């Protein structure tokens, strides 16, 4: 990180705290914490009736292949719409949030590396202020996790979590 003059830092931190709606000035961002890898998380709406889709234009990253087809093998629906996506570092020491939507999101905590480029994780799926499931998992690159969530309209909300290859 570049070393900035103290006055400038103070101005920057005041600007940040003003943007965040007031409160005490935040300390300047520290050196980026150690990470275990990156995950890609997405909230997907699966439905049979195309009229129910929300019209989201999000697209999945190419390395997941034809995600629709893979999802269709597990969830019996015709259409899969990505409502939101979020690529996030997994911190070694701190928890990470994967938030492709305020309505269904994940908390991820690293439990260290696993074989074959994997990461051991503690996952929590949150819906508003409720945790739906707490899970200990091993996530490996190329092997995404499909989490079947609550039903919505005539379809289902699905969370996809994938570990990016290093």
């Amino acid at each position: 990180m570049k070393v900035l003059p103290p006055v400038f830092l103070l101005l920057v931190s005041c600007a940040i705290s003003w943007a965040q709606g007031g409160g005490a000035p935040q300390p300047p961002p520290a050196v980026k914490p150690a990470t275990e890898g990156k995950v890609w998380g997405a909230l997907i709406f699966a439905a049979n009736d195309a009229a129910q889709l929300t019209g989201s234009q999000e697209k999945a990253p190419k390395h997941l292949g034809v995600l629709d087809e893979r999802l269709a093998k597990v969830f019996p629906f015709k259409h899969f719409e990505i409502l939101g996506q979020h690529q996030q570092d997994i911190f070694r020491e701190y928890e990470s949030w994967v938030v492709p939507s305020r309505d269904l999101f994940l908390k991820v905590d690293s439990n260290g590396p696993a074989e074959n480029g994997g990461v051991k994780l503690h996952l929590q799926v949150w819906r508003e202020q409720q945790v739906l499931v707490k899970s200990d998992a091993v996530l490996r690159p190329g092997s995404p996790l499909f989490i079947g969530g609550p039903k919505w309209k005539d379809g289902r909300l699905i969370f996809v979590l994938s570990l990016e290859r290093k």
Partner: protein
Amino acid sequence: MKPPSENHDLIRWLDGEMTDAERAAFEGEMKADPALAKEAEEMRSLSASLRTHLPAEMKVPHADFFNSQIQMRIAQLEMEDSRQKPESSLESIFALFRQPWLAAASAVAVVVAGFLMIGPGGTDSEHSLILSSYTPGRGVEASTYHDSAADATVLMLDGLDEVPADRKISGISVHRSETEPEVAATTLFDAAGAPLLVISRDAAGHPLFLRNHPRG
């Protein structure tokens, strides 16, 4: 009258898969149709014979040997696993777990055994894996399996409350995030660099969204 090739009503009646109303109706049909009644009786008789002569439990030949062979093969498999993992001696760890004082820590043992059983040779080490899960919600169940057709690991949550149909569910496209661990706050930014959301925690440790920005 259904074509003679398949009478699902007949077998549903036979197997007790009908409701009271359906059964009454079908028995009425049988009274009116002697051929149907005969067919039903023959099938019922066959079922009874099958149950008598296909026992649910059978004496295992060489039963003691059956058990000891299982033990031997398990020991063999575990030795093969530990050979591939020289650092963690599986055998000694399992021997450790047999100590009675560790019975109370069995929950820990399950998770640790789970980690240890993932050998490098098997398909388990290629795929993602759910080792354990806990669903605090009443009536919510989690099940997991690997779907080879989808090449994905599935964690299915059943029994969740449905999201009301009139509720608007939407997503965000997060490009970058910044975490300030000292204040436990993470800011999410969109592709244009504008802040989308700030996540923090409330006094109870629950996630808190401090701001909402409409998608650009």
